[in-house]
């Protein structure tokens, strides 16, 4: 990943192009090098390290002990006598769906089984922030700024990730969207980042006859300012044009994906349309409220949390079918919540604020099909402060691995300042190409001509080297063949 060490995208690509031209002895020039090296997506495979990231934040502290049931831990049933998901072998139809002999999904989340069985869904349990706060607002803020306990940091981890990554597309107009009425803290300080309540209606109201002139005046008024409002205004204007090219209303999901009609499903459906339109959006943040179930939590069918879980499962299952069952898009989705809930149910058939929780990760680059947990146990001596599920996996370990290996950003010290993450193996690793583009069995300067050919005239390359896999050119294992691979090529040939 050392190729990402440079500060600026265009700068290092230009540098590597010069190096490449020198190394290839002018061959590329002879082939008619275009003004800009094209990028060749050789396959929609699992090996991109520049995924789009979609975060779904369950606001209000979702009960991880219901979302992912430790059904083999008897203490769970002791603590939740009337607020539990019965064991998988319980009689009746309302019972957990076993995942691995220890954990199970509540039946409402059964629609996620195909994703799980396909290896695309990973659950990380006993996970969360190690800060002891049981305040929703502090805990959400700490997670979103990516630095628990820091009261002075206001920028978000996703915002800082974007600020330290080159954009997907050059001169990107829109890099991140927070679906909602105000920007999620996680996205704050992100470049070309905006909050939009409804992607489908992002146009300027009023007379069509004067809309262009009015937009011009509004743009010009804001162009004079140079503050956060004018930056948002510029992005809003560009987004009108950008989203105007996408037919959200007429969007047809793939593979019979069936989204619901609730806010989460609508947001995920718009996100899918947006991702497929390939306009350069790299991050989307979605909020889902209603998880603060102090009273009548309702985990059985028809209950409050049950309905929430059904909506969650419907949305995520549709998103999975839509984006990953045919062409497998390079997208990683994360579901998180500020903390879990108390192990012991309270006197009002609900649960109070707790600590450790579960995270869901979904995508082709996720090493899924399992529950990852260093299970701390539910005995009083094993619980956090004697009450709550302990945190044995810091949420930043999970997010940092995604940022590093799925989003291709090595600047973890900026994204998660003051923290040295431990990668837990939540992502799948990619095999880098060897760069042997002429298939003579060795990587030498000779290969640069074939590589240039692949980049500039793919058909000619296929004719000249019919048996050479294009994946050989993906030297940095990011699923793309572009200037970054050239830099890696140069580094390997002439270290």
């Amino acid at each position, binding site marked *: 990943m050392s190729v990402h060490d440079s500060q600026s995208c265009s700068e290092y690509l230009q540098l590597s192009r010069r190096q490449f031209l020198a190394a290839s002895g002018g061959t590329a020039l002879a082939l008619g090098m275009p003004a800009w090296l094209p990028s060749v997506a050789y396959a929609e495979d699992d090996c991109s390290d520049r995924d789009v990231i979609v975060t779904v934040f369950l*606001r*209000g502290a979702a009960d991880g002990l219901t979302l992912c049931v430790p059904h083999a831990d008897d203490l769970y049933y002791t603590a939740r006598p009337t607020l539990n998901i019965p064991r998988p072998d319980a009689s009746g139809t309302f019972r957990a769906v076993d995942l691995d002999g220890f954990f199970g999904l509540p039946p409402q989340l059964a629609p996620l089984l195909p994703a799980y069985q396909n290896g695309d869904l990973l659950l990380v349990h006993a996970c969360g922030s190690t800060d002891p*706060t*049981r*305040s*929703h*607002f*502090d805990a959400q803020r700490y997670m979103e700024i990516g630095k628990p306990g820091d*009261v002075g940091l*206001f920028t978000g981890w996703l915002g800082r990730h974007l600020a330290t990554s080159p954009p997907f597309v050059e001169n990107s107009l829109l890099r991140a969207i*927070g679906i*909602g*009425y*105000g*920007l999620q803290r996680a996205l*704050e*300080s992100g470049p070309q*980042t*905006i*909050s*939009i*309540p409804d992607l489908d209606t*992002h146009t*300027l*109201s*009023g*007379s069509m006859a*004067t809309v262009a*002139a*009015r937009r011009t*005046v*509004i743009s*010009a*008024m*804001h162009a*004079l*300012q*140079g*503050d*956060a*409002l*004018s930056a*948002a*205004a510029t992005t*809003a204007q560009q*987004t*009108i044009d950008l989203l105007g090219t996408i037919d959200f209303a007429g969007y047809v999901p793939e593979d019979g994906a069936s989204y619901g009609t609730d806010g989460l499903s609508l947001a995920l459906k718009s996100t899918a349309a947006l991702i497929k339109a390939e306009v350069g959006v790299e991050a989307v943040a979605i909020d889902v*409220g*209603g998880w*603060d179930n*102090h*009273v009548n939590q309702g985990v059985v069918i028809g209950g409050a949390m049950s309905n929430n879980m059904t909506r969650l499962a419907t949305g995520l299952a549709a998103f999975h079918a839509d984006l990953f069952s045919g062409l497998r898009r390079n997208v990683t989705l994360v579901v998180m919540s500020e903390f879990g809930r108390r192990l012991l149910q*309270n*006197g*009002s058939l*609900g649960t*109070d*604020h707790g600590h450790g929780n579960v995270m869901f990760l979904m995508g082709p680059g996720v090493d899924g099909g399992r529950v990852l947990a260093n299970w701390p146990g539910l005995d009083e001596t094993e619980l956090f*402060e004697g009450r709550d599920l302990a945190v044995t996996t810091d949420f930043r370990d999970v997010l940092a691995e995604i940022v590093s290996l799925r989003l291709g950003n090595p600047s973890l010290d900026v994204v998660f300042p003051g923290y040295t993450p431990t990668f837990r193996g939540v992502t799948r690793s990619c095999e880098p190409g060897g760069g042997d583009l002429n298939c003579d069995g060795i990587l030498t300067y000779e290969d640069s001509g074939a590589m240039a050919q692949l980049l500039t005239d793919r058909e000619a390359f296929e004719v000249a080297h019919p048996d050479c896999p294009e994946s050989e050119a993906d030297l940095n294992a990011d699923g793309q063949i572009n200037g970054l691979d050239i830099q890696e090529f140069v580094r390997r040939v002439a270290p």
Partner: protein
Amino acid sequence: MSLKRFVAEQLGLTASAPSADSVLSRRKMLLGGAAAFAAVSARPPQARAVPPGSANRFLVDRITFGWTPEEQNQADSLGYHEYLERQLDYHSIDDSAMEARLESYEMLDYIPYHMHNLVNVSVAYRQLYEATILRAVQSKRQLYQRMVEFWTDHFNINLFSGECAWIKNWDDKNVIRVHALGSFRELLSASMHSACMLHYLNNELSVWWGPNENYARELMELHTLGVDGGYTQQDVVEVARCLTGWDFHRPDNYDRQMFRFAANHHDFDAKTVLGHAIPAGQGIEDGEMVCDILASHPSTARYLATKLCRKFWSENPPVTLIDAVTATYTATDGDIKAMLRTLFTTLDPSLAGPKFKRPFHLVVSALRATKASYETTGAEPSVALFNRLANMGHLPFNWAPPDGYPDRADFWVGSPLTRWNFAARLVNGNITYLSVDPAAFFATAATADQLMGQIQAKLFGGRLTAEERNLIRDYLATDPASPSIRLEAIGLALAAPSFQWY
């Protein structure tokens, strides 16, 4: 970010380049030139320091829901302190026109029993929405309405949580509006006895054999001490135990969903709250003691002072000001008027940075400045306007979590399109029952320059920057006689950056 930089510049913390930062230049203009910046060093708190003349503009901006020439005239004729005192002594302001306007909104006075007898509760909460908007726009008791907004956020209740839609009307009238400019201790006590609050935060199901911590925690975190106010998880548990049995009448009679203390649900054992012993054997007195402990706590004084300063001074108020307002809380046992008096008379207002209008503020200030006609009744409210506010994410009583709508520019600044669209729809006549009359607004103005002069005078009081003015004037010049162009020019002015701050 830039707001913070701006504030830092105002406080002299960073060098201020002679940039095109027109927020800065607006403030300079407001203050009558750069000379005002010479006196930025934090002066020691000084009771009734007399701010310079342009301070009246600051005061009108801060204590109303939007500047108007009429409000400015009143402030100028009364003087800074007298205008402030008049607004604080809100009962003395004749608001009979407002009361007459609201006569058909009879459900504002309904108790929960009446509300439950309605076929459709939406009729009642729409009256509450509209009354809240109308009062903000038309009431002469502007500071009082701003304080109602402040406490509505502070003691946030989401209308669509449980049965809150049936009981928020009572809470609004009897908790927030009764005490908005009174004593915080009494306000807190009223809120603790509000069935709506106890329902919203689940206290009605907190019982001695199973206390529910939700209300107890937010009572300390959000309503009094603040999250860093020095309480522990054990204090949350103890306060929850003290408040077991605080709920409301269930039977379907006149008392329905009015407060009651259910002794058979109460935990009668001894407790310790924030170091104070709560003796065993008490009943409702436990909760009353908690109210007193919290209202008297120094963390509460500081937390409320900080929040008030953020609301009325700037997002990053100087510590000296917070100290002064905190001291006033302590000295007056939480007299809200006294705190505001200190807040507005301690430091030179030229120290304060601009604040970004939240969507509700933007909407109300636009309706005030344009003198939009707003012809509705309690039976036929403007649902279209509620939809606009919802589209902007700021329909009153619709913030789900208990911390209230955010009051920071960072949160709201990212979605300007919904603001432009409100403005465009308002002038276009697309918000049912609301309209702007270009003939009345522009009077006899005819040329683009004259029309622009009216916009500058009526919406901005001179605050529109030269660049913005030129752009809108050029738009008017395309067809100055056209009523639709004139209206669109007002819409553009309402979308101008200068209209987004106050």
